[in-house]
């Protein structure tokens, strides 16, 4: 394949043009428009109290969603890979549901289940003092729902690949289940986990549809950053809308850069190749390096 020069260059050109038209150029325009009225206007737009509130809320929600999805993501991954039980394949398929179903539908579903006045579960919670819908818990739930598969889809292949032998070795050396998980399994999946966490974080920061339904969009209370973007845009405050968009896009790009640096090959983990030394195991070996 490497020898066929023309094909290679044509392929590259097609991919580059495609990515430019679809992603690079539009995102660049967001940045350009954010600074269209100068840096002062950009900073003013972002330091407006309601915008600051919205970004704070977004950070809190994303942090909670990531923590929840990390804990449950690892639990579900271990369950899926290390145990066989009836309904395992259905569970595995169900985990992809948040990726395939529209976030708006997710929002409506949560509204039906946890709505304060006529939800299936909501009135009970509300009478005990926990308001879910039109409050932060609902926004966290919606965000956790849509980013659920990201950690699991990263961790499951790695868990499958490392197999069970290291864990069995740990058990035979006296480790209990928790020690085995913490000392053997967790270090083995750590890069996949970090990768999944960063992706979840990026996804959580940008969630819009599900959050819009369950939050009620109350300015200064349940308005997240993406909702600010929409509202400013509809009120013809273009600069404010683009400024907030720019920050969200920058966060996502930053996350992707982090992920790229963490990918195997860039990782600081000891992946030095086994030197193809001729084993002379019974005599004293000299350091081949």
């Amino acid at each position: 394949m490497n020898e066929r020069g023309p094909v290679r260059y044509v392929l590259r050109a097609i991919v580059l043009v495609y990515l430019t038209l679809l992603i690079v150029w539009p995102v660049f325009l967001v940045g350009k428009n954010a600074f269209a009225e100068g840096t002062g206007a950009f900073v003013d737009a972002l330091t407006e109290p309601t915008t600051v509130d919205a970004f704070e809320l977004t950070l809190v929600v994303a942090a909670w969603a990531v923590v929840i999805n990390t804990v449950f993501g690892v639990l579900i991954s271990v369950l899926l890979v290390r145990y066989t039980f009836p309904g395992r394949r259905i569970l595995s398929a169900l985990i992809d549901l948040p990726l395939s179903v529209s976030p708006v539908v997710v929002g409506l579903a949560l509204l039906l289940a946890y709505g304060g006045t006529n939800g299936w579960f909501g009135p009970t919670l509300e009478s005990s003092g926990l308001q879910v819908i039109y409050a932060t818990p609902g926004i966290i739930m919606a965000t956790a729902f849509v980013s659920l598969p990201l950690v699991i889809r990263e961790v499951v292949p790695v868990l499958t690949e490392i197999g069970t032998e290291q864990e069995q070795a740990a058990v035979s050396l006296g480790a209990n289940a928790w020690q085995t998980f913490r000392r053997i399994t967790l270090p083995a999946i750590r890069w996949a986990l970090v990768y999944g966490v960063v992706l979840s974080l990026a996804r959580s920061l940008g969630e819009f549809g599900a959050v819009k339904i369950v939050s009620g969009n109350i300015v200064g209370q349940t308005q997240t950053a993406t909702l600010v973007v929409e509202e400013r845009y509809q009120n013809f405050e273009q600069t404010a809308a683009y400024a907030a968009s720019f920050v969200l896009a920058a966060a996502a790009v930053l996350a992707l850069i982090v992920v790229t640096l963490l990918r195997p090959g860039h990782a600081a983990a000891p992946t030095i190749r086994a030197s193809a030394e001729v084993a002379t195991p019974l005599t004293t070996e000299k350091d081949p390096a």
Partner: protein
Amino acid sequence: MSIEIAGVGRRFGDFVALEDINLSVPAGQLTALLGPSGGGKSTLLRIIAGLENADSGTVTIEGNDATRLPARKRNVGFVFQHYAAFKHMTVARNVAFGLEIRKQPKDQVAERVREMLRLVHLEQFADRYPAQLSGGQRQRMALARALAIEPSVLLLDEPFGALDAKVRKELRDWLRRLHDEVHVTTVFVTHDQEEALEVADQIVVINQGRIEQIGTPDELYDQPASDFVLSFLGPVTTLDGRLVRPHDIEVAAGPVPDSVVGTITRWTRIGYEVRLEVTPTSGGDPVQVQLTRNDALQRGLAEGSTVWLREVAPVNGAHSPVPA
């Protein structure tokens, strides 16, 4: 007796992996579980370790009933075919793992790790990661890790199976010497009869979930209890309707009583050894014969010669020495 196995059975669905296994493993000895793949030997080893549960029967280790004891409380050292090295830990941390789990004082752990690494000749690799070691080195690290916890028994599951032939041979000799030094009751699984014959004090031949025979290497080789054991422990050929070893056939250039006459149809020389294929004049399958090159030359044999074959009856313990 160090390990007592009584009435152990194990099924996987319809497949009978083990059926009514009764076995005593003597203390301080090196015992081989030998048999073809899928015969149940690894399952038996994993049941002893507690990594697998038996459907029936009991396992007793050093007089204590271990049948219901979880693997982590059995104090057995287990070595896996593919090393099961903890990839994110240095060699020293790998070896220290079991001791750290047991919450031994740091200086004691360090001392024991040094001692173990000296035993397996990996002292200067203490700070390496497993990925920086060769296969043989990794397996010796795994052995040090298993021995560090001073296990009641050491179990090895095809320990040299993933290594190339030369390293395998070296490690085998080395395991034998190590065992003579450490004297821990050791059970290892292998499908390589040469490995079992060379290393083990006692061999247990397992086939299709059952024990075919238990004995010393000599007993098994000279008095096989069944055709299966005979053919599994070494090469066999059919002479006059009976299974015999190719090197237990006497080749004569002239007529001898009670012999089969035939023509040499193939001549293959491998080092000091000559392998002949003799097609009987009376018809039937060709007979495989092994003899030393000197023997063959002295008798003036060549491809196409007519020869007379008969079995050298292997008298117990005094049969013709195998060229080595």
